């Protein structure tokens, strides 16, 4: 595993999370209740987060250590992993356009958390 795996992978996640967030907000404005597209977008974000969790656990074993606090990194990562299913659950229970907006807010919040995680892994302590 190369040293920059965490970096490009996290950037990919940020892009996917922002795209998912925008898709959900647009669908909400269009009056759509949570559907396969919005929930599917969140599922993609969640899948990448779980992959990130696996990558982060393996990375130090191959010499790629976080420059910042690992505790802070994992607090963000675990929060993000929990946040997406909570939003999706809400979207399944309350079938309104506003729930689609909540899906979008969750995806954008995860995008911000991922950006913070990237900073912790690569530039903190510098």
């Amino acid at each position, binding site marked *: 595993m190369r040293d920059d795996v965490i970096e490009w992978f996290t950037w990919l996640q940020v892009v996917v999370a922002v795209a998912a967030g925008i898709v959900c907000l647009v669908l909400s404005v269009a009056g759509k209740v949570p559907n396969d597209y919005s929930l599917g977008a969140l599922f993609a974000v969640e899948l990448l987060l779980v992959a990130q969790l696996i990558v982060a656990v393996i990375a130090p074993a191959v010499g790629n250590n976080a420059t910042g*606090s690992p*505790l*802070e990194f994992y*607090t*963000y990562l675990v*929060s993000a992993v*929990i*946040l997406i299913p*909570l*939003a999706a659950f*809400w979207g399944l229970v*309350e*079938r*309104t356009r*506003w*729930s689609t*907006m*909540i899906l979008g*807010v*969750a995806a954008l*919040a995860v995008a*911000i*958390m991922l950006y913070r995680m990237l900073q912790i892994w690569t530039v903190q302590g510098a």
Partner: protein
Amino acid sequence: MQSLLALSPNLEAMQSPTTPPNSGRTRSRGIGGVLIAVYGVLALAATGRSFVQIATKFDHAPLAYVLSAVSAIVYIVATIALFRRGPVWYRVAWVTISFELVGVLLVGLLSVFDGQLFPSDTVWSVFGRGYLFIPLVLPVLGMVWLSTRGRDHVESGA
């Protein structure tokens, strides 16, 4: 007694097809749901950061980090209070949200004048700058929403 408890969920399930989706306990919260969700995210963010601060660098700024933990708990209570219905939770929501507004204004002001006492990384420092100023905006939106909901309470006689 036990049989009644066992029966009640079934009764509710039997009634549900005939009751419209927008009535009763499960009434849609509309845009208020988005507000609650954002509150939930902020509660999660404040709790996570407070946990890290107290676990790793409590000695740097004990007062600020204790306050950080208190604010995290208040955000959690506010989220629950906004989610639940009824006059008691309504009052709890007002108290917690007011506490947040006072907190973000007071700590925001103090952090501008004394960076040592309140480092830049608490949820309320510099009016919540580290959180896109959401901690400053959210209590105001919360109060607006609560006051419209309060009017509904009066109109419906509840």
